[in-house]
């Protein structure tokens, strides 16, 4: 498992807020993605019905996940492929290394896979003498920078074109230093040229899977670039790494969910390449891999079933939640400190690495609810974040100051008589102190607020006090 810095969220967020390149990229992202999504939805009256159906399909699968996994495995084997079961990231890495070693692999091409990030595959392969080559342009760019992805479908969304050009010049030293890279198209062409050779050199191609189809034993990848296809078609072996909950029952079910996936992610009706792979090449096929392996990863998924967090297993990794989240748009994906950022990351990260290792993530939310409103699978993200806050409270992970403050508040709120007396007094004082200016430039205990905002002064008398007086004056209680 790769190292997480989720508990350094505040410091990470601070860095993100202070990073002008990131802020400029986020300013574009937070307008672009939502606009494209809403345009796409406007053209599809059936969108909400498709969302409901998609949610129901996934719920049905989760209730019967064991049976569907066994059916999927049987179909893969009928087609001449192999299914490997991995409980932990270590097991998954060992399985993949075993396949690579047996094939004497030196170079491995990779389609984009968040699971491969989750298990820290690239570093592990490199440490074992195998070179992993990311082929998705965004992943390739961050690989050059030794960074992790900051978004689950647009890994390099935090970078500007200028930053990418600088990296290409720094790393592609075999090319003419004076070449013109002004237009983004030239960067794409350059990456295309370099990666082209790598596809042919690769011994093994590793992809993730957006779906695993139980009916046919197929894995499905969704890309716009075609990199996943060259990754899986050209080498000797195609290895799919996927977590358990990617199963859908039939090709029809996949078709339903595909209709909400693209639109929610990038506003496209269909991604350019949606590819269904089933087993190794057939005898008479003219191309294709000789081996097909599916590595099924648990890493905490089976433990989430039957809990109040089960619904996160419906996630189809579209990224709509983070595209619309005002907190993500303020701090960027790296602030979240692990593989999965944004609202889905705020729930999945504590679910997979433990809430004590991701204390801030469920807390860094205003519960505005925008994420849930755009999620194509109707995942109740704020509610699950709140469940983690309950866990933190019970496990004493809530910061002491907050606990104390809330404790005092709650104690008085449960005692109306005391509450009214105390607040009446406090508001009279505060109101008097603030009457000249109307607000406070500085307020003890509210330093976080008053550092950058005025704190409006209360009117001076509480409503309850005035109402009680009024009632008394009118002869009522």
């Amino acid at each position, binding site marked *: 498992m790769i190292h997480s810095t989720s508990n350094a969220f505040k410091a990470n967020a601070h860095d993100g807020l202070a990073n002008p390149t990131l802020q400029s*990229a986020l300013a*574009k992202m937070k307008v*672009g993605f939502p606009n494209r999504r809403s345009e796409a939805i406007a053209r*599809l009256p*059936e969108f909400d*019905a498709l969302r409901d*159906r998609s949610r129901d399909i996934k719920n049905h699968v989760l209730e*019967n*996940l*064991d*049976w*569907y*996994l066994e059916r999927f495995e049987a*179909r893969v084997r*009928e*087609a001449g492929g192999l299914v490997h*079961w991995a*409980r932990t990231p270590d097991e998954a890495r060992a*399985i993949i290394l075993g396949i690579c070693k047996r094939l004497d692999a030196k170079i491995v091409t990779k389609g984009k896979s968040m699971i491969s990030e989750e298990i820290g595959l690239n570093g592990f392969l490199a440490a074992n003498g195998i070179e992993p080559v990311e082929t998705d342009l965004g992943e390739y760019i961050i690989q050059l920078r030794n960074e992790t992805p900051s978004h689950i479908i*647009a*890994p*390099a969304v935090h970078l*500007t074109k200028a930053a990418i050009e600088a990296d290409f010049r720094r790393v592609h030293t075999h090319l003419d230093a004076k070449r013109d890279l002004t237009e*983004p198209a030239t960067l*794409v062409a350059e*990456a*295309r040229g370099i990666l082209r050779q790598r596809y*042919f050199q690769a011994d093994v191609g590793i992809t993730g899977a957006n779906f695993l189809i139980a*009916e*046919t*034993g*197929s894995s499905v990848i969704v890309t*716009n*670039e*075609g990199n996943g*296809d060259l990754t899986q*078609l050209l080498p000797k072996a195609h290895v799919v790494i996927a977590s*358990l909950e990617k199963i859908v*029952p039939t*090709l*029809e079910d996949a078709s339903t969910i595909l*209709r909400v996936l693209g639109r929610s992610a990038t506003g496209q*009706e*269909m991604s*350019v*390449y*949606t*590819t269904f*792979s*089933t*087993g*190794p090449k*057939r005898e*008479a*096929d*003219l*191309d294709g891999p000789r081996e097909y392996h599916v590595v099924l990863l648990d890493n905490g998924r*089976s*433990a989430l*079933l039957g809990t109040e967090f089960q619904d996160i297993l419906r996630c189809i990794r579209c990224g709509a939640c983070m595209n619309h989240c005002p907190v993500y748009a303020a701090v960027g994906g790296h602030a979240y400190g692990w593989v999965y950022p944004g609202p889905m990351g705020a729930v999945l990260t504590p679910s997979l690495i433990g809430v004590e290792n991701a204390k801030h993530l469920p807390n860094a939310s205003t519960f505005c609810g925008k994420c849930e409103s755009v999620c194509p699978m109707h995942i109740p993200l704020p509610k699950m974040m709140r469940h983690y806050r309950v866990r933190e409270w019970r496990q004493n992970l809530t910061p002491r100051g907050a606990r104390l403050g809330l404790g005092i508040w709650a104690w008085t709120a449960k005692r109306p008589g005391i509450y009214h007396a105390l607040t009446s007094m406090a508001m009279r004082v505060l109101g008097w102190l603030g009457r000249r200016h109307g607000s406070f430039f500085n307020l003890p205990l509210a330093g976080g607020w008053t550092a950058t905002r005025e704190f409006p002064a209360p009117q001076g008398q509480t409503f309850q006090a005035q109402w009680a007086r009024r009632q008394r004056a009118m002869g009522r209680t």
Partner: protein
Amino acid sequence: MGATAARDGPDMTNARNQILGGIRASLKRDVLPPARVAELEARLKGQARGPVPARARDLDRAALIDLFEKQAHLVQCSVARVAALDDVPGELARYLKSQNLPSQVEMSPDPTLDRVDWSRAPMLEIARGKPSGAEGVGVTSALAGVAETATLMIPSGATSPSTMNFLPDTHVVVLPASRVVGPLEDAWMKLRGTVTGELAAATMPRTVNLITGPSRTGDIEQKMEMGAHGPRRLHLIVVEDADVA
């Protein structure tokens, strides 16, 4: 054909059992009872569809082709309609000239393309078979065209190398109009029809490519750039002759 399950050994069986057992423990039940299994089998066989967009339903042949062409333009394909298979060579030659491309193509050994009289474009150099890896023009057919999204369904096979869909710089697809369907689900029915109507992984092709437009990426400041790794151009030649299946 490679590693067998035995090579993974007892650890794998342990892992498998523990994962499946863990799922059942979490769901607070045992293995599913036969009645439930029967329901799940029926669901798999039933191939029930979710909501199918109205715009792709109940369209006659002409409306299907029109929708297909309209959607194709929206995803940056070029489309040409020709009356008969034998008009294809002329259209292909015209297209190559219009794109300033040399009169040379690689072509998959597809039976539909076999039926075309290529002598009608004598200047056209055609290499049949697998793609060489050169970044020129690749010509294929398709099993189906999905009008809903202008998606091409191209399965792999003895006469259909999947790499031809990705290695060339320009991809030309010859699509008989009779193969255009409304929604994606109808294309799956076509595929199932060609591999004998049942859930059958063993007869599912190795690769089914659903292709919607030319390759692109939005990874640089989210501005769409064409030709990321796959072809940067996708030209569709729709053959309207109703007798061409």
